[in-house]
């Protein structure tokens, strides 16, 4: 037992917490966080068209494409938000003008995108064929469309391009500033004008370079980077790949470190990509490609917070120990909304050898039941991102587009995990009850 604790604390924790506070990783994390309000609101519209009532589905069918537009401009365009967010935050961390960083990153990312000339493409397809009225209509349509960016590429598909290009753009900005490669306006020039001139040289470096490689040499960054990340994405859906984050997050929480925040700072770009692509696939009527997005953890494993502590809290509420009862009572409401710091630090679970086995290894068991259900198609794979503070069974329902089996799995895992906690909880309770009895007879006051 001690060996595991030392391993977690000395080997696992230091490098992971170090990575999560690295400047660029933090900028990526904050950039994605900034887009979340849009994503959560946009996803409500996806939930709306998934409501499980046939009459409703029939009613909205003609308007479905219109209804999901807020979804398409949020998660569907995630790369745009992420590019601006990363540029802004990275520049801010260097104490440079954040707005300059944001627009630099945004512009640089857009330069990696290839607009399609719809008119030209259509006339290429029609060629010399005489299609009569159809041909005329097609040509007119193409001319009206002009240049168009395929929206698909601005979603998760090119998100890693957005991340990398944004970082590069801000680093160029910083390089120019440090080497004094900026055009300085004399005093008295309004700040907004001076600001735009300060960006001139960095933009003159970034835009032509990306333009050259993307549009002249014709390197498709999106396809290239997807190829590089493919093994990681595939691994994320395998059994081991799904459970690695579960273990890491709980091991860190056991040391009282916010595991989701640390692991998420690295994994969240990947998780965001997974849920976006799942949503896009389901909208097209295809099966969701990624078995284990973050929502699988959220709704089937972290029920009541990391370590699935909701059942534990309920047991605490009815405990024989006064202390456990008090902590249980204040922990239940936050627990329903997946906040469990009062338990983690109050019980405490942190560094508590009795609670280590169920807290760190129990979630691997319900992670397994979850993965099996996803792998065998017994439960719809989550494809909608909903706010993590919803009670787990409701979140499970919404996130899977109202699959009742998701609700069953969520409840099943909660019961299973409660049973896993039970013997350990009892052992700890006995110890506390004995301590409390001893304290009552002595003058020593039990201090929190």
């Amino acid at each position: 037992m001690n060996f595991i604790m030392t391993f977690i604390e000395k080997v696992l924790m230091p490098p992971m917490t170090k990575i999560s506070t690295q400047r660029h990783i933090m900028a990526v994390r904050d950039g994605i966080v900034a887009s979340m309000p849009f994503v959560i609101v946009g996803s409500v519209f996806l939930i709306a068209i998934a409501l499980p009532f046939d009459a409703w589905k029939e009613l909205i069918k003609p308007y479905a494409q219109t209804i999901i537009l807020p979804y398409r401009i949020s998660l569907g365009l995630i790369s745009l938000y992420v590019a601006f967010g990363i540029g802004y935050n990275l520049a801010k961390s260097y104490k440079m003008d954040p707005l300059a960083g944001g627009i630099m990153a945004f512009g640089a990312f857009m330069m990696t995108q290839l607009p399609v000339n719809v008119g030209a493409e259509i006339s290429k397809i029609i060629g010399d064929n005489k299609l009569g009225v159809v041909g005329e209509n097609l040509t007119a349509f193409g001319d009206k469309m002009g240049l168009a960016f395929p929206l698909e590429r601005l979603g998760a598909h090119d998100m890693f391009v957005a991340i990398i290009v944004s970082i590069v753009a801000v680093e160029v900005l910083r390089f120019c500033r440090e080497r004094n490669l900026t055009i300085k306006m004399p005093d008295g020039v309004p700040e907004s004008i001076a600001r735009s001139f300060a960006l001139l040289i960095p933009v003159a470096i970034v835009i032509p370079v990306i333009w050259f490689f993307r549009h002249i040499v014709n390197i498709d960054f999106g396809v290239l980077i997807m190829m590089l990340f493919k093994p990681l994405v595939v691994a994320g859906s395998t059994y081991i790949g799904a459970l690695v984050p579960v273990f890491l997050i709980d091991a860190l929480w056991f040391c009282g470190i916010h595991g989701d925040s640390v692991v998420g700072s690295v994994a969240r770009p990947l998780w965001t990509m997974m849920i976006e692509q799942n949503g896009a696939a389901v909208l097209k009527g295809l099966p969701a490609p990624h078995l284990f997005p973050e929502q699988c953890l959220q709704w089937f494993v972290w029920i009541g917070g990391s370590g699935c502590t909701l059942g534990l809290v309920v047991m605490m509420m009815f405990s024989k120990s006064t202390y456990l009862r008090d902590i249980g009572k204040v922990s239940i409401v936050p627990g329903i909304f997946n906040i469990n710091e009062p338990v983690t630090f109050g019980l405490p679970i942190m560094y508590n050898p009795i609670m280590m086995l169920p807290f760190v290894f129990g979630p691997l068991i319900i992670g397994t039941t979850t993965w099996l259900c996803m792998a065998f198609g017994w439960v719809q794979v989550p494809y909608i991102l909903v706010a993590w503070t919803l009670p787990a069974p409701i979140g499970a329902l919404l996130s899977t587009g109202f699959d009742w089996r998701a609700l069953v799995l969520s409840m099943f895992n909660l019961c299973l995990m409660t049973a896993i906690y039970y013997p350990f909880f009892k052992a700890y309770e006995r110890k506390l009850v004995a301590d409390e009895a001893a304290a009552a007879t002595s003058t020593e006051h039990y201090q929190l």
Partner: protein
Amino acid sequence: MKILMVCAGGMSSAMVVRAIEQEGTKQGLEMKVKAVGIYEFEDEIKNGWDVGLVAPQVRHCLANFQKAGNEANVPVIAMSPQCYTPLGGARALAEAKAAVAK
């Protein structure tokens, strides 16, 4: 006393905020306590706080927070895990006071 707390998203610390406020009012102090997420702390600490309290689960970011605190001339300390519950108000306030007195 003006206390700024920081945790991952500013949510769990919101519960401790109330506990600290109640404890402070009990002691007859005029209290202002606010909880923010890690990405807001750096900006918020500049706005005239007496002390910054770092929740235990984000203490790995303490160095960053303290840097921001130094620039704003505000002491920033890591809270002990024991006071990070809705029942830990008294102890949390004591830790905050000690940090200000230093």
